[in-house]
C-alpha cells in the first residue's frame, strides 16, 4: 500500500515537473496559450516564481515555432479607458512572483496559431537564462477556470 502510494506521488511529481520549467531560483509554471479567434492574435498566461535572493528579469518569450511573444500590460486610466502598454522586460522580485494574467500583464501570441494540446514555450531571463516550459493550449472559454480571476 505504501509502495503504491509512493509510486503515485512520484508519477504526479513527474507530471508537474514536465509542465513546469525551472532554472536556479526561477520557476515557470501554469503556462497557458490561447490561440486567437480566427486570425486575431492570441494570448499567453503564466506564473513565474523567483525563490532566489536577487531579482531576475524576464526579457523575452519565444514560441516553439520561433515567433516572439510580445509582452503587454493592461492599463486603465482615470476615465475608464483600457490600453495595452508594450513592455520590453518584466522584473521578478526576489522571493516573489510575477503573474501573467487576464486583464493584467500578458503575452500576445502571433496570429493564426493552430491548436495542438500543448506547445513548448521558452522564457528568457537576465540571470536565470533560458527556461523551457510546456504550455497547455486552451480555448478562451476555458481561461476562466484554468487561469482564474483576471486583473492584478
Amino acid at each position, binding site marked *: 500500500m505504501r509502495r503504491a502510494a509512493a509510486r503515485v506521488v512520484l508519477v504526479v511529481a513527474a507530471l508537474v515537473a514536465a509542465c513546469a520549467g525551472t532554472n536556479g531560483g526561477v520557476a515557470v509554471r501554469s503556462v497557458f496559450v490561447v490561440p*486567437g*479567434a480566427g486570425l486575431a492574435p492570441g494570448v499567453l498566461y503564466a506564473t513565474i516564481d523567483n525563490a532566489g535572493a536577487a531579482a531576475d528579469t524576464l526579457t523575452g518569450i519565444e514560441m516553439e515555432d520561433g515567433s516572439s511573444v510580445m509582452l503587454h500590460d493592461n492599463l486603465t486610466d482615470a476615465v475608464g479607458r*483600457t490600453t*495595452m502598454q508594450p513592455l520590453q522586460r518584466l522584473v521578478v522580485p526576489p522571493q516573489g512572483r510575477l503573474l501573467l494574467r487576464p486583464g493584467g500583464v500578458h503575452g500576445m501570441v502571433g496570429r493564426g496559431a493552430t491548436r495542438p494540446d500543448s506547445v513548448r514555450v521558452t522564457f528568457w531571463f537576465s540571470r536565470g537564462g533560458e527556461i523551457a516550459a510546456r504550455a497547455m493550449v486552451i480555448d478562451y472559454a476555458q481561461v476562466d*477556470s484554468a487561469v482564474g480571476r483576471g486583473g492584478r
Partner: protein
Amino acid sequence: MLLFAVAAALGAACAPDTSSRAAGELRGFGMNPPIARPSFTLTATDGKPFAFRERTSGKVTLLFFGYTNCPDACPVHAANIAAVLRELSWADRQRVTFVFVTTDPDRDSLPAIRAWLDHFDSTFVGLRGSVDSVNAIAAKLNLPGAAFEQKAKDGSYGVGHSSVVLAFSADDSARVMYPFGVRQQDWAADIPKLLTIKPR
C-alpha cells in the same frame, strides 16, 4: 368605502419598485442613476442598418465596445458570456442579446467582425460605424471613446477602449455594468436575475 379607497391608494403609492427588487443582489457594479437604452443605428455584419434600441428593446442586452485584434479582455469577455448563455434554457436564451461594437473600424471589416464573433456564438450581434459615431455613442453612455496607440514597425497597434459590459434589462435601463475580471460564475448568477426584470 371611501376609507378603503384611500387605504388602497396609499398602499399603491408606497408599494416597492418590484422591477429593481426582483433583480435581487447583482454581482455587477451598480449604476445610479440607471442609463436608458440608447437610440443609435450602426451597420450590422450582414451589411444592413441595425437600430439598436428598436432591435433590442424588451431583451436583456449586453453591450460591449471592443476590437477583434484585442488578445485579452475582449475575447475573454465574449467567451465567458457565450459559455454562460449556452447553459440557459432555450426560452431564456432567446431573451438575451450580446452586442459588440467595434472601436477599430479600419481593421474590423464586417466579415472580420462576423468571423470573430462566430468563434464564440453565431447569434452575437456585431456593429460597425465610424470612429466618431461610435465615440459619440460611447459618450452618451458615459464611457470613454476609443484611443489609438502608435503603430509598431509591423503596422500593428492597440486600441484603448472601455472594457466594461453594460447590461440593459427588459425595462430598457442599464442599472449594472460588468468590468473586466467578472467570472463566468458571476454572469451565471446575474443573467437569470436580469431576466426577471420586467418591461415597463
